[in-house]
């Protein structure tokens, strides 16, 4: 059962809790297939998103999830709020709590902000991405998608290609996949590899060809284009040559390997269009599954005894 009313990261979850969320999500996936895609359990609850970084897809996904659970959803717009007038993040969060919200979906460029807020708030805090720390609902929807295709996680080989050092998606997936018994490979240039990552139980590759060989799942990550100017990479072209997921490279993976991407994609930088749109791609399914998974998270956290 879920122990905490907050979802701060996958780090804090047990394998059992992860499976419980995924099982619940399949119930919601069924709901989403119906004509009436709405159920009533969070009637009267309100969900507020507080995003200090721009995001369209995650915010929209949470909004739909909340609404399909019959909760009210309000976006606290940071750019028009007092945050830019110098209000502290704690004051902003406490203000939202005083408005009577039950859930706060928070995204911030600084790692640890959801933890900071969870220490001062009564309401449930859900991490929608903090710095280079975690993006737990993304990893959960990725697991859900993998399970839908592979029927298991244990024993699979999952190759994650990209800017591991700055990727909270990679981190959450590494925790989730290793907790459930998958073999995880991380593939990226040494400049983008976080310190001592191998201690998390992953295999480190600098060669994409070697890293994707015989894997069951290939996950490519978005490359923030400003990495080039910071000296992590000589050029985006060279990055694509070395780490871009092309049809040729994908052939090295298992024949039935699936291709995933958390979006938004840079076509021609980390992934070739032919792969993104190809038969092995499950990228749009990930987006669909995101709603069911976020419904499950909201629903289960609402059921945790306060």
């Amino acid at each position, binding site marked *: 059962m879920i122990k905490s009313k907050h979802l701060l990261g996958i780090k804090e979850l047990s394998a059992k809790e992860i499976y419980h969320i995924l099982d619940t999500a399949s119930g919601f996936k069924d709901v989403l297939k119906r004509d009436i895609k709405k159920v009533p359990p969070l009637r009267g609850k309100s969900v507020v998103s507080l995003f200090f970084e721009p995001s369209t897809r995650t915010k929209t996904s949470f909004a739909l999830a909340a609404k399909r659970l019959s909760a009210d959803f309000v976006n606290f717009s940071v750019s028009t709020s007092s945050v830019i007038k110098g209000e502290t993040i704690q004051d902003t969060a406490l203000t939202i709590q005083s408005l009577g919200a039950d859930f706060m979906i928070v995204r911030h460029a600084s790692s640890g902000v959801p933890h900071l807020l969870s220490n001062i708030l009564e309401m449930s805090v859900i991490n929608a991405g903090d710095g*280079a720390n975690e993006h737990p609902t993304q990893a959960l929807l990725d697991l859900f998608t993998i399970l839908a295709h592979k029927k298991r996680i244990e024993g699979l080989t999952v190759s994650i290609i990209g800017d591991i050092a700055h990727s909270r998606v990679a981190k959450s997936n590494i925790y989730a996949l290793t907790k459930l018994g998958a073999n995880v490979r991380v593939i990226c240039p040494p400049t983008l590899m*976080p310190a001592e990552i191998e201690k998390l139980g992953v295999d480190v590759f600098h060669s994409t060809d070697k890293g994707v060989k015989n894997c069951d799942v290939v996950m490519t990550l978005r490359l923030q284009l400003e990495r080039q100017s910071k000296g992590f990479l000589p050029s985006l072209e060279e990055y694509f040559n070395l780490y871009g997921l092309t049809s040729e490279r994908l052939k090295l993976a298992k024949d039935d390997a699936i291709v995933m991407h958390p979006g938004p994609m840079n076509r021609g930088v980390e992934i070739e269009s032919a792969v993104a749109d190809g038969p092995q791609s499950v990228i749009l399914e990930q987006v669909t599954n995101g709603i069911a998974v976020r419904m499950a998270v909201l629903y289960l956290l609402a059921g945790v005894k306060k």
Partner: protein
Amino acid sequence: MNILIKNGRVIDPSQNIDGYKDVLIKGRKIQGLYTKGKAPDAGKIIDASNCIVIPGLVDMHTHLREPGFEYKETIKTGTMAAVKGGFTTVCCMPNTKPVNDTIAVTEFILERSLKEGSCSVYPIGAITISQKSEALTELEAMIKAGCIAFSDDGMPVTNSVMMRRALEYSKIFKVPIISHCEDLNLSEGGVMNEGFVSTIVGLQGIPKAAEETMVARDLSLCELTGGRLHIAHVSTEGSVKLIRNAKSRGINVTAETCPHYFSLTDEAVISYDTNLKVNPPIRTAHDVEAIKEGLKDGTIDVIATDHAPHHIDDKNKEFDAAAFGISGLETAFALSLHLVEQGTMDLNQLIMKISITPSKIMGINKGTLSIDADADITIINPENKFIVDPSKFASKGKNSPFNKWQLKGTVEKTVSMGKVFEWK
């Protein structure tokens, strides 16, 4: 009125004394040490039973924040925190607003500490004007005004030529140049030690190399110039090795570390407690061992506090945005005493590192209980346990990562220039 401190175990390595003696104070000076019962009568008796009576502690690395940041700390509150922590002398760093790079600021600090201070204050002047690494300050004038050393602490001297000139020029006055070693390009954006823990918490790391490359540079410059170099807040194993090697080659260098570098590891940062954010950052268990080894074998000469008080608003923020620094004066001795308990050093060595050696490095007549010395005396009950409670700090800075820690060794009384401070 004379004061007699009775029944305590007096330890003064400067005179090779360790035994039960009574200390007589007359005015602002020490009148003498007497064997039990031999001291003349005094107007006030302090009973130091179960306590050690040692030379007042000397902190050669303190941020008093005044002028300019009085909301973080003032000379009044900072020196009150000092005596509460057993320190009777603090040397204050120049990164105030304005920077202590002119005699006006130096004189202001000294006047203010005479008026409002509880302990002796010695200003450290800036090496370069505004700490910008562009032009040297007027060392002679500032020394005359009362500066005893120079440092751009808080900022490194990024320009190697400027550091060379500082080490050369300061030889005229035989004053130490205290180096804050940090390659700003390597540390840019970093908020904690770079390593496995920074990977786990997703915070940007500061590699050990950011400190070590500049330690190496400054040791080379020290060798080149024959200047008087002191390395501030050593935090890594690599720095310890570099300094050890330099000392073995006869380079005129001294070094300090701070209690947090031998009491904490970066794993604590998993809590995202911003009170753990300090520069240089708290390192790994491996580094902690190396720091202790360096203290033990003399590579590290001094324990300083790097007392860096902050207002709660500067700490109560997201980790990336919070200020660097630890309010350290009121926990430093107990944390250091733990090293004695662990067998890293004995009490004599500890008193050397936290009182006598810093006095020698800074060239001040402190750190001794000899006759006619300033009556700076710290009385500590080394067995008494206490729970750290920053809300009770005399310092305005409550930013301590040691909140709720149980420590041993309470400062019972501090005598600063003959004035007795005690707490209930």
